[in-house]
Structures are given as C-alpha cells and as structure tokens.
C-alpha cells in the first residue's frame, strides 16, 4: 500500500524533470563564445522576436567595432501603457516630473538605460521628461534621417533637432487586417478604407482593441478622426476658394470641429459593429486569423507576420489609401544614464539607425542569422529602401505616402479623446450594441439609416473636449489631486450621458419594431 501511496509522487517528480531529461537527450544548443561583458538595460514593449533579433545583432556589431560583446537585459511591461506607468513610478520616486525642473542627474538612476518602442506620441507626450538628449557621432543622424519629417510627422524630436531626446528607428503604419474567406462568405468586397468597416453586414464581426490599453488602437482611432478633420479642412478651403473669401480662424475652427464630430460618428458606427474591445493590441489580428472576426483595425507588422504564418487566404492587410498614418517608432536614452552606460546606450541608438540595423526590420528569415522569422516592419531610413533584395515586403512607404499623416497640432485632444472613446463604447458597448442590433432588424430601410445616423451623432463636441483639457491642465499645474478627481468625475459623467443617448435611440428602435416589425 505504501508503494502505491508514494508512487504518484515519483510520477510527479519524473514529470517535473521530464523537460530537462528530454533536453539532455536531444542536446542543448551551446556556444563557445565567452559571456558578454557589457550590459545594457532596455525597457520595451516590443515583441520577443524583435528583442531577440536586435540583441544578438547589436552584440555582434558592437564586438566588431569595439571588441566587446553586449548582453541586453530587457524589462518587459505588458504593453505601452504599463511601460509609461512604470517610468512615471520610477522617475516620480527620483523627483523627476513632467513640467518640473530636472534634479541633479548624478543622483538619478532608475536602473534602466534605454526606452525603445511604443510610438512617437508616447515619447513626445507621455515620457519626454524622463529622456535625455541622444548623443550620436557627428553626421550619423543626418545620414540616417536627412529629412526631419515624413508628410508632416516628425521622425525625431522636432523641438530640439540638434540634440533630439528621441529618434525614430522604424515606421509603423495602421490599417485593416481582414479575413478574405469570411468576406467571401459574407458576399462583400474586401474592405478598402475605414468607412467600409461601418457596413452593417459586419455587425458583430469586427475585432477592436481598447484604446485605453492599446496604444496602437488609440492611434488607429485618431487616424479616423484626423482624416475626417482633414476632409473638413479641405472642404472649408475649397469653399473659400470658390467664394473668394479670406480665411477666418473661427470659421476654420468650426469646420475642424465639424470634422472631429464626423470622425467620432464614423467611429461610433465602427464601434457598433465590434464584437468586443479586447485588452490586447494583438488579439484582434488573431481573431481575424481564426475566423472569429472578419476584420480588425491593426498595426501593420502584426498582420503581416500572421499572414506569413497562416497564409493570405486567412489574413490580409490593407493600408487605407490616403487615410493610413505612418508614424515613427522611437528609441531614447533615459535621464540618469551616465558614463559608460550612456556611451553604450548611444551606441545602441547608433546601431538601430545604421543600415544593418535598419535592414533587419524587414529581411527575410533566411537572409539573416539573427532572425528565426522576418519581423515584417518598415525601416525608417529612406536610403535602405533602394536595395530591397532579400526583403520580406517589397513596399516603399516613402513612395506611397499620399500626403495625409497624423498632425501634431491636432493631437492635443488625443489623451482626452481616449477618455471619451472609453466612456462611449467600451463602458457602454452593451447599450450601443442593443440599440444598433435592434435598428438593423427594422424592416424600413430609410428608418434604419435615420436611426443609425442619430445613434452615431454622439452628444459631444470638440470644444467641450478642448475646454475639459484646458481645465485639467490648469488643475494639474495647481496640484495633481484635483485633476485626478476631475478626470474621474468627468469620465463617469460622459459615460452616463452616452448611455442615456444610446438607450434613448434604442427605445426609439424598440418602439418602431413594435409598430413596424422586423426584417422578414
């Protein structure tokens, strides 16, 4: 009996060590190279594939040039938002705050040297206070990025171009990932632009990410809003040209506000089609690949990598013509990084900007010893696109950039728009979906369109968001507390307002259903 009693323990122990036994049996990869003697600490939300490829490539590059190899210790937060919070906590502890004079750098070191990835908006608006000027050998930045912007978007810190506090090292584009198989079943043409995602036949078939948790999703939403603002601005200028009037700042502001409202309406209609808002920026693409969703708003490389793995009958990526932004994904040296660590950190930036480092973003897996599979990202150096041999994607974003890009001056409402989006369709998705699906069941097509227009007419204007931002900024200057409370109260108030709006339209749809009936 004793044997039986303890035999399961033996099985447990055997299972526990099975991976090691198997590994010993098949043989573990070893290396005769001595352990790396330099260490660089990098915080990054980049994927495992990217981290591994660049660590090995940088180490070799460094050994070739300076005779010593480098080990990179990555700190890996669960996404960009987490990374920002981490840096705020760490620097807050050292007395470094946004807007406050920086303390003596000698006394500040948070244990991380470099921050890499997370989008230019994050670097420019969220963590700039924690960055120090990048110090590259003369001519390196100029050779890598001879033009400081791409269609209006700064490729490195535009405020202090001589000593930039962040430098873009890759480009991100945002577009639509879709499942061709599902579109065929729906008997619908493949989506081409954002407004195609408002098609009612996609109801419950869109995969979207929560903009509060996914930085890339938030940027994608902002593209939709800014495209509508750009259209409104163009229409305003066309009107002026036709009438011969001169531009009036107030009228322009009003036109832009209308554009903002139109963009928000488009987003409400897209949100109404969403099956849910996932917490992860990558999950929407996975759902498209698995056929759970027909389409998703997606960051380019994730969709491309997935298409390579699953085949293009399962996932395809399209950048909406004239409505897809190209934004830089930066790297920066953190405040408090001094001495040898600073030298090494700047060398890392230099490597990322080098032609070798740039090509690594898009080389095929068989073309580089550092890649297990292609990273499918777009380099930021224009000159490396001249030779695209052995690349995974034969696209040149510089050639296809159509003039539209995110405008920094319109990004001032970005942070607060996220609060509005969250209140409107993350927290009230059930009310929105209930109203929308009831409307879609109505037999009268005209009434359907009318009610959808009403539903998407979100009761909020750009002026309200801007005055909210102004008030919040003022409170933040006076002291953080009131600002936090003000923000929480405002978000709750918006959520209540939007819920009432969706419920009101929902009630109209339900009563119309009672009188007119559903689609047969």
């Amino acid at each position: 009996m004793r044997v039986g009693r303890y035999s399961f323990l033996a099985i447990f122990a055997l299972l526990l060590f099975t991976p090691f036994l198997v590994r010993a049996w098949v043989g573990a990869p070893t290396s005769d190279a001595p352990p790396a003697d330099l260490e660089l600490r990098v915080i990054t939300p980049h994927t495992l594939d990217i981290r591994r490829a660049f660590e090995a490539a940088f180490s070799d590059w460094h050994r070739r040039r300076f005779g010593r190899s480098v080990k990179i210790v990555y700190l890996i937060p669960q996404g960009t938002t987490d990374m920002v919070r981490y840096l705020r906590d760490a620097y807050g502890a050292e007395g470094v705050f946004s807007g406050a004079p920086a303390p003596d750098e000698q006394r500040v070191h948070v244990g991380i040297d470099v921050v890499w990835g997370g989008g230019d908006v994050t670097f420019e608006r969220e963590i700039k206070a924690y960055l120090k000027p990048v110090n590259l050998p003369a001519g390196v930045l100029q050779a890598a990025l001879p033009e400081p912007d791409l269609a209006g978007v700064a490729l490195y810190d535009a405020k202090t171009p001589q000593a930039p506090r962040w430098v873009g090292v890759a480009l991100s584009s945002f577009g639509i990932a879709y499942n061709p198989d599902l579109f065929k079943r729906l008997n619908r043409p493949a989506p081409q632009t954002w407004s195609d995602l408002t098609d009612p036949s996609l109801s419950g078939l869109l995969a979207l990410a929560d903009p509060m948790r996914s930085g890339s999703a938030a940027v994608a939403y902002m593209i939709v809003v800014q495209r509508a603002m750009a259209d409104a601005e163009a229409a305003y200028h066309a009107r002026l040209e036709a009438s011969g009037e001169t531009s009036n700042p107030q009228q322009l502001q009003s036109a832009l506000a209308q554009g903002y409202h139109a963009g928000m309406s488009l987003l409400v209609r897209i949100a109404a089609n969403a099956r849910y808002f996932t917490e992860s920026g990558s999950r929407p693409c996975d759902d498209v690949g698995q056929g759970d969703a027909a389409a998703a708003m997606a960051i380019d490389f994730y969709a491309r990598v997935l298409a390579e793995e699953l085949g293009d009958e399962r996932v395809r990526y399209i950048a909406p013509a004239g409505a897809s932004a190209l934004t830089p994904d930066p790297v920066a040296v953190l405040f408090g990084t001094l001495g040898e660590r600073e030298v090494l950190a700047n060398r890392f930036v230099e490597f990322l900007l080098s032609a070798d480092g740039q090509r690594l973003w898009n080389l095929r897996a068989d073309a580089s010893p550092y890649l297990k599979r292609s990273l499918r990202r777009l380099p930021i150096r224009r000159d490396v696109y001249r030779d695209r041999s052995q690349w995974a994607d034969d696209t040149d974003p510089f050639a296809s950039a159509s003039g539209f890009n995110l405008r920094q001056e319109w990004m001032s409402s970005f942070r607060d728009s996220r609060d509005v989006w969250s209140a409107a369709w993350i927290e009230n998705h059930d009310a929105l979906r209930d109203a929308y699906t009831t409307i879609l069941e109505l037999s009268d097509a005209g009434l359907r369109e009318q009610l959808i227009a009403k539903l998407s007419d979100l009761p909020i204007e750009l002026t309200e968001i801007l005055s909210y931002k102004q008030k919040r900024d003022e409170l933040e200057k006076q002291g953080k507390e009131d600002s936090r409370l003000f923000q929480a109260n405002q978000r709750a108030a918006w959520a209540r307002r939007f819920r009432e709006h969706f419920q009101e339209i929902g009630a109209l749809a339900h009563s119309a259903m009672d009188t007119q009936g559903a689609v047969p």
Partner: protein
Amino acid sequence: MMASGESKTFGFGRPRLGAQQALGLLLLVYFALVLGWPISSVIASGFQTAKGSWTLAYLSLILRDPLLLRGLLKAFAISLATTFTAVAIALPLAVLSVKFEFRAKRWLSAMTLLPMVLPPFVGALGMRMLLSRFGPLTLLIDSDSALGIDWLGQLRTLGVVVTEALGLYPIVLLNLQASLANLDPDGERAARNLGASKWQLFRRITLPLLRPGLFAGSTLVLIWSFTELGTPLMFQVHDVAPVQLYMRMSEIDSPLPHALVTVMLFASVLLYALGRLLLGRSNAAQATKAVRVSVPQTLQGARALAAALPFVVVVMLSLLPHVAVVLTSLSKTGAWYHSILPRQFTTVHYEKALQDPLIMPSWTAQHQSFGAIANSILYASAATLFGSAIALVAAFLIVRSKLRWRSLIDTLSMMPLAVPGLVLAFGYLSISVHFKHRWGAQTPAFLDAQQWPVGLLIVAYAARRLPYVVRSAVAGLEQTPVVLEHAAQNLGSGKARTWLKVTLPLLTAHLLAGALLAFTFALLEVSDSLLLAQTSEFYPITKAIWELSQRPGDGAYVASALGTWAMLLLGSSLLAVGALLNRKLGTLFRA
C-alpha cells in the same frame, strides 16, 4: 478526529501560554507583513490624495458610478449563478459516488477532479479554439452555417458561468463527498423507519447534515468566481468588477481602482458572511463522525449505467478545454480551422518549447539563465518550504493551543483565498516601489522587484498558497490523537522531542500533501508572476507561457505545448495528494 476545542478536555499538560503567545504574535507579525502590508498599501492609495491627505472622494465616486456598481452586481450575479451551477453539478455526483457502488465508479470519480488541473491562460487558449466561429463545436452543431456560430462573441455571460462552474465544481464535490461519508447511516435509517419518503429523507435529514460541506465548498466557489479575472477576460466580458479593476489598474495615475479594491474586498467578506449565514458552519456538525460507516448500495445493469451517466456527461464537458489544449499543442500552426480536429499534426511546438532559452537553461554569450522551468521549481520549492514552516506553527496554534485568538490565526491563514491575486501582486509591487522611492539605488536587492524579484516572488507564492498547507496540517493534527503525545511526555520525553519524534512523523503524509499542492499551484501562479518578474532571466513558467502566447502565429501552440506538460504535472500532483490523504482531498479546499 478531534475538533480544535477538544484539546481543552484533555488538558494538554499545562499549556505554556507564554511560548504560544509569542509564536502567535510572530505569526500575526508575519500576516501583517505578507498580507496586511501589501493589501493596505493598495487600499490606502484609494483613500489618499496625491499630496498624501485622506479622502473619501474616490469611494464615493465608485458608489455613485452606475457602471462600476453594475460591474459589482454583475460579478455578484455571476458568482451566485456559478455557485448554484457548481452545486447542481456536484450534489448529484456526490450522492451517487458515496451512496452507490457501480462499475468504473472509482475511475469516473477520479476524473471528476481533472478540471482542477487546467493551467491558466492555456485553458483559455484551448477554449478559444474550441469555441471559435468555425471551430469544432460549431461544426458539430451546424456545419452548414455560412458565418459559423460566434460562441465567444454572443454567449459571453453564460459562457463565463458555465466555464467557471465546470472548472470549480470539484471543490464543492470534494467537500460534499467528505460530509456525506461522515453521515451516520442510523439517522437516515431511523427516518425511513418513521415513514419518510426518499425525497423527505434527503430534504429533511441528509441535506441539513451536508450543510458544513456545502458551506465549505460553495463559499470558496462563491468568492473565487466573484474575484475571477481570467474567464471573463477570455469571454471579453468587461463590465464585471474584477475586469474593471484590472483594466483600470493598468491605467496611469488613477487612485480609483485602489478604492475599487476596497469595495471588492468588503464584498468578498460579505459573501463569506452570507455563506455562513445561509449554510452555517458549526464545529459540532463538522465533528459529526459516523459511528458506523454507511455501506454503499451496489448497482447493476441499467441502474448502474444510469448512475454512471451523469459522471460521463460532466467529465466529458469539463474535459473539453483540456482536450482542446492537447490538440492545439499538436496542431500545425493554423491547421485547426473549419475542421473538427486539426487537419495536420506536428510535434514541432514541443521542440520549440524545449529549445527556447526563455523556457530551458541556456548558456550562450547572450543568455546565461536557468530558464523559466528551473526558475519556477526554485521559487516554488523555496516558497513551499517557507510556507510549510509557517503552516506548521499556525496549525499547532489552531488545533493544540489554548490561545483565545487562535480562530483569528485560522481566519488570517485562510485570507489569501478571499483576496484577488491581482490585489496582492499590486501590493507587493507598490511596496517595492515605495522602498525605491525612499532609498533609491541603496534599496536592498530583495526588495527591488526590478533588480532581483526572486525574494518577493517567493514571499508572494508562500503567502498565496498558505491556506492549502495550513488546512492540510490542521486536518493532520486533528486526526493525530493527542494521547500519543501525552504518552510520550509521561515517559519523559520533552515537548520538542515529542513533536519531532511523535507528532511530526504522524503528520508527514498530510504535510507532504499540502506542501505538494502548494508547490504545484505556486509553480503555476499567475498574478504575482506577471507583475513581479520583469526581466526574462527571472521569468517563472507562467510569465514565459504568457510571453510566448503573445507571439504572432505559433504563440498559442507553443504555449499549449507547455500547458500540456503543466496539466500532466498538476494531474499527477493531485493524484499524489489524493493518495497521501487517503482520498480526503476535500479538507484542502475549504474556506
């Protein structure tokens, strides 16, 4: 078996209250450090302004916010529905397994415990494959549907309840089986003699006597499902309190989630009180030990089949995620689409997992690390040793001491079960941040999660899994007759020697069982691992699985390969624990 109060009657020598009090106080200090401190540091942030003064503004905001209130109510409704469903599944199985004997009963009973071996994340990955729009379930039900069936998108709340109930019913089942086995058959016989029908007998005699077991199991399920994060996240149910908490926790600079934690903790305590009020927990009822053991009625033929059928149905349903995980791990990437089974099989994901430097030891120029599996074994072993020592002291004080506040120790040692893992993890992280604020670069490494998270991980694992070891040690001590210790002392053995030579050997099986369970669950602990391990050289296995599962394309498949190994490990651990405790596994899963 002796209830804790019975040692008074024996008058265990003259209890050295001084030593006991000192031990008790030490334990209280331990609880204050590993539970009180992290929890209060999380809670305090919800009641503090940025300048450090106290405020109730955030609490009042939560109580006025209809969305957050709805989230709390929905979490409560889901936990109630889950508990009722779990009881509805477990009660007939418990009655059938204790009252009747039929073919294959032993195997079927053992298989009902398998839902507990589903590792986190990976279960979700398996379920996503199973419930995908064109997945096996859709094809089995309606293979002609052009757009498939969006199980995960449409039946979300129901999906959460069913998935949680199918995962948690074993806890109720184990407790009910223990209670049923303890029932004195004479009571039932007497009722039958007095003319009670079978239904009356069940309702008036059996059910009331089952109350302690029902309380123990269902309270745990109630609190567990109230604070459960993974399942609602998998079904994308975002309007429940734990998910709202998780989502807002990761937002920058908001004290609101911290105030929400307080409300959730308070609600958990209320749920516990509610369970106690409805089902009661009298020691007398728990101590009811059958003088005679009831003999199960042997069933044959059709009746045996009818008795086995509920087991087969429940086991088949609850094992679906496990099967899905195994199939995913063996499927070629993307080959499980529009098909009941994967179209192509491969072992490449296992090979990838075994070659990954994140998982296995690696000694190259870039990586000199033990890998996540070895890390986890190390952390979990240290946490188990540490936790066992604490549990032994706690169990001694709970069962053998005269301390008036020993029930406080009992309650505190069970507290980690009621506190969401995320809250404790955030608490440890905020303590680490607090020290870095104060001491900067001078912060000792063991308090700095960024530099060396190992110390904090071990303390966190030990605290989270303490209840299992304490319950096991308490059960062991209660079953160890105190007269043996008296006899040893009468023969001149000192107290310490008596403990070492008599009590401890008799406790070995129970301690080992509790420790093994704590070890296995620590090995697969999620919240602490995700938040505290920040660099890959210190990754435990769960964080490595999470990291790999995020990889586009093959991530879910490689994670499933590791998940299959984890399931086998957990399964063998439960079997070993069951064997060590002689099938009294239920004692470890009590609130």
